């Protein structure tokens, strides 16, 4: 059987891990197979979970979150027979499939829509914690915004520095209010549970918000401009389908491979104008074609358009 290891956020984090969970469930439903799973609770469990699952012959062992990188590099070599999958993480071990998502590209598109939907010319970004991954989201977003409206103003906030930063919708709401009072009328949330507070407050205050990771449009129909979906569900689903004979290596989940993208559905239909659609499609095409390169914060730990 395959096994999946959810990160500390837990499989119901309404975003990243939950997407993975949905992929696994999809597979389970279709094939009727079942899979091993664990929601990590402590750092020391990372290695532990990998080993225990590998020992029991689970294959592939799918992990979510960049934080698994170190543990993978430790454990993978001890189980050459097993294929490990890391979403977001990285390991040079030969039996690891590295799935890399191009959040910056997805966020870039989100930025374009934000800029076009914004009447005030001021848009907001609320991140969970000031860590590289979140900067990657923010930086891509900012590039998209500025590409569309060079003199747009971007207000960026981080929620906190303790683990509760990801679970504080109240603070999320306050940050949103603060950004609105500074003129923001479209706000992109990349903050897990805290993001729910952002979307909620935006809806209450009558401004638009942009969800992240999973499709969160349905949370407030007609109030959520779109969601920058990260198809972890696809990655997990495919890995489970290929099962034993999954090939290690690198799999890039970018726009080209539909690994990231914007959620368009009935819930945000009337918010999305044709111009937006057009602009997004055009940018997407250009990015795929390489005519536009969205700077990836991770590549050099800098963001040309935004200070953190």
């Amino acid at each position, binding site marked *: 059987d395959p096994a999946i290891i959810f990160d500390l956020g837990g499989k119901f984090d309404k975003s990243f891990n939950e997407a993975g969970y949905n992929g696994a469930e999809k597979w389970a439903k279709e094939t009727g197979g079942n899979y091993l799973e664990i*929601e990590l*609770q402590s750092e020391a469990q990372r290695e532990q*979970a990998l080993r*225990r699952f590998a020992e029991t012959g689970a294959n592939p062992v799918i992990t979510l979150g960049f934080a698994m990188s*170190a543990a993978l590099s430790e454990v993978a070599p001890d189980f050459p027979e097993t294929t490990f999958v890391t979403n977001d*993480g990285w390991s040079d071990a030969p039996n690891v499939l590295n799935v890399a998502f191009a959040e910056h590209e997805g966020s870039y598109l989100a930025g374009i829509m934000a800029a076009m939907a914004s009447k005030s010319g001021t848009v907001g970004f609320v991140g969970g914690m000031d*860590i590289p991954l979140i900067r990657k989201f923010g930086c891509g977003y900012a590039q998209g915004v500025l590409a569309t409206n060079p003199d747009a103003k971007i207000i960026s906030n981080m929620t906190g520095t*303790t683990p509760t930063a990801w679970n504080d919708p109240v603070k999320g709401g306050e940050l949103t209010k603060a950004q609105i009072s500074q003129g923001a009328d479209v706000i992109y949330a990349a903050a897990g549970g805290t993001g729910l507070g952002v979307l909620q407050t935006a809806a209450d205050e009558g401004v638009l918000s942009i969800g992240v990771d999973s499709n969160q449009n349905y949370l407030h129909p007609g109030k959520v401009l779109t969601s920058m979906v990260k198809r972890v569900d696809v990655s997990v689903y495919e890995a489970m389908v290929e099962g034993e004979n999954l090939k290690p290596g690198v799999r890039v989940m970018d726009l080209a491979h539909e690994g990231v993208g914007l959620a368009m559905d009935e819930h945000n239909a009337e918010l999305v104008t044709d111009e937006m659609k057009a602009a997004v499609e055009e940018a997407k095409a250009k990015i795929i074609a390489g005519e536009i390169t969205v700077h990836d914060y*991770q590549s050099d*730990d800098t963001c040309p358009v935004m200070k953190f």
Partner: protein
Amino acid sequence: MQKMPKWADVALIPLLNLLIAFVLSGLVILAIGENPIKALQTMITGALGSTYGWGYTLYYATNFIFTGLAVSIAFKAAMFNIGGEGQAMIGGLGVALVCLYIPFPHWSVALLFAMAGGAIFGAAWAFIPAYLQARRGSHVVITTIMFNFIAASLLNYVLVNVLRPQGEMNPQTAAFPEATHLPTLHEVLAPIGISFSKSAPVNVSLFVALAACVIVYLLMWRSRLGYEIRAFGLSQDASVYAGISPFKIIMVAMLLSGGLSGMMSINNTMGEAERLVLNSVEGAGFIGIAVALMGRNHPFGVLLAALLFGFLYQGGSELSLWTKIPRELVTVIQALVILFTGALDNMVRGPVERIFIRAAKRGAN
């Protein structure tokens, strides 16, 4: 004037308490439609059934011994140090700096320096609260709570902007050099022919922790300083009459407390992760409060309580690995254990005591 034999006091009562706690936990498990017996088996075999299980149980216990001792020392001086969390974080920073920037010939030297680094940084983080308490009377509970938040911010900044290697996704330092690798129990025991799981993170820090228990015992119960700390904690007025300096005691107790919290990092940071990660402490500072209180603020009580929590942690991991029981159940079990062994103690003690006294009376006449 013993109300009941010592063995009953130190063994029987706690066991009865534990029993109640586990029975209740069992009911909770039943309530969420799982099999408590199986769950208990999973926990016990998972945590104590193999050297592997022990390896993790002891690893967690090591953390809790340090933080537990830390809290208990402050308590003995009548101070409630809620700041173990922050002190441990900053201690980790100290350990990381030592390991990253000093080239070490051998792990033993590295360990000594890391211990110093962790202890000094941890103590430093306790210094301001201690000083403000001693000089300005600012309540140490507030200041240590605040310093937990401040520590989190500081660490977050340092790991994201200063110590994080370029291109590293995780807010964490580079891996420590090989020379600072602490031998795991496996590596320690293999030479003498005892085989111990090589994948368990328990390492020589365990021995440091055990040593710390003994040293703290000697300090608190055999040394002049310990005598003064305990006296001060029980009666400040009397201590002043006896010529004990409140300032000295408050500072010393808090610095020792912070130092011990900080030293925890040799286990989780240097021993396990071999790099400093953002949430390396993950609540051990708060668990320390429970451990200290349950251990009656006595080093050996702390040791036992720490083992118990190590067991709960490791047993809990196994639960979430092999059953569909959500990880939060473990938290609930911990809560019940703390509640019954710690706070509802007398619920059992009262009746038992009466039984013994009646027995004694009957014996008398």
